[in-house]
């Protein structure tokens, strides 16, 4: 419980320390006469000092040199991606010949698998992959089972030791384990598999947070993406059969060629929530027996803690749940902080990537709750978003609106800076 009794919000003092340091108009004068605020400000400065003053243990010169040498060695052991530097067609032809020769060697090596000479679990047939600090190029043998990532603008095609193939699109993040059978974990992105027929005691498994896909031998795709309703895993089958088990409730579905299944996220495991995620089939609805799900959420969050919980849901990508909670909180009666809920709703819209709608939502806060701190915050948020997503004119218009409504507002300094950047009157 804060001992402060002063009307100046603590946030204004915290912003003085953790923000840009530009004081609210009149705050200096107030601080001169308010002991309570001076103490609170000193507390925030102490916190800032503690954060800035904490230093890592000093590294010995020897240790530093060893680490640099190790990093260089590790980087060298990975086939580095160097920018192409062509010096005319001869260099290009030479490079092409070398590439062709390398490809031929790789082709022969792949056609004649020799487990004793190739300790890796896969060969990167084409494209690029990153793993921790390492990057792999076409032809690289993957030996470790860490988290792999396909860099922006790239794709990757892997050939596994048993001849199965995996294609990963840009931005995919996945891991693999080949200790028993083959197991892939997909964090995000899309993987397409062509799996060679394999014995039943050596399963081929792909897992995401929402689903576990077990394969006998087929060609299928698993993708995981963040949608408005949270992360969704989608499985589609081109040939053969796969079995998909929902991580939420263990429901199993068999997917045939040409079928597709979407597995939405598990309902957040909050106290009192036991409803599982829903498995709904899209490509073959006639076979679907989707169970309707009525998630049981926490009690209606109308207070600050509840709003905090909704914000956490938004940050976790659980936007559908967040919206449901907002709606319930709005109906919670006089205890609900409607202005703050409206801001949270705008945040949810922003989290969905709908910038135009988010601007409208913030502006709605300014109209419905004039004179509240949320209205000021929302107008700045709308202006700030408009600068980047609604064009210069709209951005400048909202910045002017902010200035005229709050000539000595909390965001005046930010507004002036934005106006200056846009070549407006803040110059």
């Amino acid at each position: 419980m804060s001992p402060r009794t002063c009307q100046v919000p603590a946030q204004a003092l915290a912003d003085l320390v953790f923000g840009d340091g530009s004081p609210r108009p009149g705050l200096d004068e107030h601080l001169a006469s308010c002991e309570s605020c001076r103490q609170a400000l000193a507390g925030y400065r102490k916190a800032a000092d503690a954060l800035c003053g904490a230093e890592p243990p000093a590294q010995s010169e020897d240790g530093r040199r060893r680490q640099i040498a190790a990093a260089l060695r590790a980087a060298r052991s990975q086939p580095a991606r160097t920018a192409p530097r062509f010096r005319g067609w001869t260099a290009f032809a030479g490079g092409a010949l070398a590439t062709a020769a390398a490809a031929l060697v790789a082709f022969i090596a792949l056609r004649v698998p020799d487990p004793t000479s190739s300790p890796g679990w896969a060969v990167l047939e084409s494209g690029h992959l990153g793993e921790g600090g390492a990057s792999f190029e076409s032809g690289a043998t993957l030996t470790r089972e860490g988290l792999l990532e396909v860099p922006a603008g790239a794709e990757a095609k892997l050939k596994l030791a048993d001849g199965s193939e995996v294609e990963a699109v840009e931005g995919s993040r996945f891991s693999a384990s080949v200790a028993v059978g083959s197991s892939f974990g997909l964090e995000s992105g899309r993987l397409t598999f062509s799996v060679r027929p394999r014995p039943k005691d050596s399963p081929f498994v792909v897992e995401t947070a929402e689903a576990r896909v077990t394969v006998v031998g087929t060609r299928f795709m698993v993708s995981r993406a963040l949608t408005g309703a949270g992360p969704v895993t989608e499985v589609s089958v081109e040939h053969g059969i796969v079995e998909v088990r929902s991580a939420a409730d263990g429901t199993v579905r068999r997917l045939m060629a040409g079928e597709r299944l979407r597995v939405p996220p598990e309902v957040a495991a909050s106290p009192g929530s036991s409803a599982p995620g829903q498995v709904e089939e899209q490509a073959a609805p006639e076979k679907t027996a989707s169970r309707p799900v009525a998630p049981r959420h926490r009690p209606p969050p109308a207070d600050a803690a509840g709003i905090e919980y909704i914000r956490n849901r938004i940050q976790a990508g659980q936007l559908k749940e967040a919206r449901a909670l907002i709606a319930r909180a709005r109906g919670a009666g006089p205890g609900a902080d409607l202005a703050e809920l409206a801001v949270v709703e705008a945040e949810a819209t922003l989290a969905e990537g709908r910038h135009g709608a988010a601007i409208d939502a913030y502006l709605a806060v300014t109209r419905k709750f004039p004179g509240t701190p949320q209205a000021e915050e929302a107008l700045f948020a709308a202006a700030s978003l408009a600068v980047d997503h609604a064009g210069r004119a709209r951005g400048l218009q909202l910045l002017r609106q902010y200035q005229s409504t709050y000539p000595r507002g909390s965001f005046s300094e930010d507004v002036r800076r934005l106006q200056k950047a846009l070549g407006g009157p803040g110059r």
Partner: protein
Amino acid sequence: MSSTRDLPGQVVLAPEQVPAEVVEKAAAGDRAAQEAVLEGTSTFVRRMLYKLIGRVDDLEDLQQTVLMRIVTGLPRWRRESALSTWVGGICVNVSRDYLRQRRTRSVELDGEPAERALQNRPASSDLQGEAEAREELRRCRSALDRLSVNHRTAFVLKTLGHSVEEIAQMTGSATSTTRLRLYYARKAFTRALAATAPQAEGA
């Protein structure tokens, strides 16, 4: 070439001070130049990672990961930002992955790293002051742990003195998003800090 005394007993060379021609050579694969780039950035990387993750455990591994990524990434770096911003971006990516992994494992201990962190400050005879600083750092880290990884990262980068534009570049976000993240991070941090405030404060 100027240098700033930063960590106790160490002279820190800011990454901007690595000459451009050395960076060019390093990008082309020159081993000595690569070593020079890592020499110039390793302390910066260490400090930045430490501030971002707030703990000593795994720091060495993360530092090495970043150094390795610098070497492997230099050929692809387009020189559109300062070296510090690019290296900072690598630190941000590595630390974000780390924090997310840690968060999923739900493990966070602060007392011990806070102790160690303050041991690295210049020696002081003010034992009570040291104890208070240790407690303050514990509170701050506890408050940071309540922030989302994106908010935490933006907030810490701001306390390190980076501009909104630099933070946007490092985190790969739009400046508007970064501004809003900073705003909400400040609010969340202040709230979290208040929640851990000692009862006697202000008495």
